[in-house]
């Protein structure tokens, strides 16, 4: 009875919808004039600066104030800029190490928080999430003071170590959030059927955890590649990263080369993000299939 009523309702609604297609229902705020205006204005606001920056990277004018013609020479300049090269490679090296180590450590942390109850867990939980909420400037100067105190020269190692430290909680949060949907009875079933601890983990827990781990790893990767403040305080000569190098260019000689370098960074980050999303949607679908 209920189903026929529901079916009837849907039928009526679809007829009404077809007739009243042009008039927005009271709750379809997305189609109201003033909301649409705000949305369009917001998107222009959000995209105009970036689009303008990319557009003017092709400007044939050193001062880059007015448009003087199309050129690729600043991209050529950026590609030939040895210190930009080095900064880019440094960014890659640091991001790779940071991602690997922080993903491993962060996953371990996420698992432990998800699975175990222990005395002082609440306090521990808050402490572990501190790097996420602490202002970056405070963290950056703390790392500087620390390395100065222990007499460690600033370089690739100091930057990587700092990146790992602030990435671990982010990975832990993502992994833990993924695990919150995990059905523990699967683990118990596996053990009942005779598998040992390791086999259970590898064949039951890990496949489920994997999308969360991958998401956490990609988050750590982006955090490291994009980081400016903390890297600024923990890098020395020869360990400048791409964003820090761009900052130095912005501070001193602002030509379209800065725009070109920035565009390259934008493209790289976006490409990684798209790959991230594709992987996530594909593994997400797989796991849904397996249940």
């Amino acid at each position, binding site marked *: 009875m209920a189903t026929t009523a529901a079916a009837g309702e849907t039928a009526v609604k679809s007829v009404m919808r077809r007739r009243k297609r042009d008039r927005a229902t*009271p*709750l*379809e*705020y*997305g189609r109201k004039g003033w*909301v649409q205006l*705000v*949305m369009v204005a*917001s*998107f222009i606001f*959000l995209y*105009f*600066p*970036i689009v*303008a*920056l990319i557009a003017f990277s092709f400007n044939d004018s050193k001062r880059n*104030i007015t448009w003087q013609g199309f050129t690729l020479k600043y991209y050529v300049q950026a590609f030939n800029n040895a210190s930009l090269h080095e900064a880019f490679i440094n960014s890659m090296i640091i991001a790779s190490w940071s991602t690997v180590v922080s993903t491993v*450590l*962060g996953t*371990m*942390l996420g*698992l*432990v928080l*998800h*699975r*175990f*109850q*222990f005395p002082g867990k609440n306090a521990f939980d808050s*402490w572990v999430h501190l790097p996420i*909420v*602490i*202002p*970056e*400037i*405070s*963290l950056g*100067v*703390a*790392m*500087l*003071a*620390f390395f100065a*105190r222990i007499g460690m020269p600033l370089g690739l190692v100091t930057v990587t*170590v*700092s990146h*790992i430290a*602030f990435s*671990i909680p982010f990975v832990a949060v993502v992994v833990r959030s993924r695990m919150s949907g995990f059905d523990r009875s699967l683990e118990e079933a596996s053990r009942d059927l005779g598998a040992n601890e390791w086999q259970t983990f590898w064949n039951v827990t890990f496949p489920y955890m994997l999308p969360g781990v991958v998401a956490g790893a990609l988050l750590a990767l*982006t955090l490291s590649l994009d980081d*400016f*403040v903390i890297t600024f305080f923990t890098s020395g000569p020869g360990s400048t990263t791409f*964003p820090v190098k*761009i*900052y130095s260019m*912005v501070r001193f000689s602002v030509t379209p080369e800065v725009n070109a370098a*920035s565009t390259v*960074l*934008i493209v790289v*980050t*976006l490409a990684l993000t798209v790959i991230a999303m594709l992987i996530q949607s594909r593994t997400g679908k797989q796991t849904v299939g397996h249940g």
Partner: protein
Amino acid sequence: MQDWRQNKLVFGVLLLPPTAWLVLFFTLPLAIVWVYSFGKRGPLGETLLAFSFDNYLRAIEWINLSILLKSTWIAAVTTALCLLVGFPLAMGIAFSPGKYRNVLLLLVILPFWTNLLIRTYSWIAILRTRGYVNMTLEWLHGKLDALLGLFGAAGALGKFQPLELLYNENAVIVGLVYVHLPFMVLPLYATLEKLDKSYLEASLDLGAGQWRTMFSVMVPLSLPGIATGTLLVFILSLGTFLTPDLLGGPDSIMIGNLIAQQFGQARDWPFGSALSFLLMYATFIFLWLKAVISRREGGVSY
């Protein structure tokens, strides 16, 4: 959830490495800064360990306290603007037909994935004296002048005076709103999307108009999202360093810049450490306020 004693080995193996890393490379650095905050500055800027509250007392001297207050003001204005713009934006996305929703959400997040430095720097070209805004205004001024010229009143508008849009507090606020808008939109969207629409329909059925429904029903129901977004934007704006550094002028120095200066040119690490901790305490206070509010709201957490 297991008790840790049930599987001490796994517990230890999982817990120890990340904890060790965080203790060594997070807690220890903060502890050092904490100790430094009680230290003294040597004649050429070295840090001398001492036990003195001088740095904290200096931090609450008016000249420095005013910077903290100004930072709070800028952060508050930024948050308010983000809310004002973000709420209709989130509403529009949340109530859009399903297929558009993901696309729109993606469009909001996409700029967020570009580097903070680049996003902030891009505003310089827009706001400077010969930036896009002023050049457009100058062009309009010229056209208007030409138009008036047709009526014999050429030159009535006088010479074009470009607007001072860069290197001041307003530029910093624009930059901060730009950078933090997604942080406001996402939690708002999450709340609005999960909203039980029947409340809104009921309100409309009972005769309340659109606006009344929005303010009396939708907004209160989306308070958790508003709280999360507000807190996020406020805390991030309070501790910002890059945006005022690039876009600000002599009148818009914020607490993040003051701290950075102490660890740079000013070479006063003890004072910078004290300021850094004051900023952290301020952050914690606001977090704690949020926790208190959300607990009172009946434990609707995010």
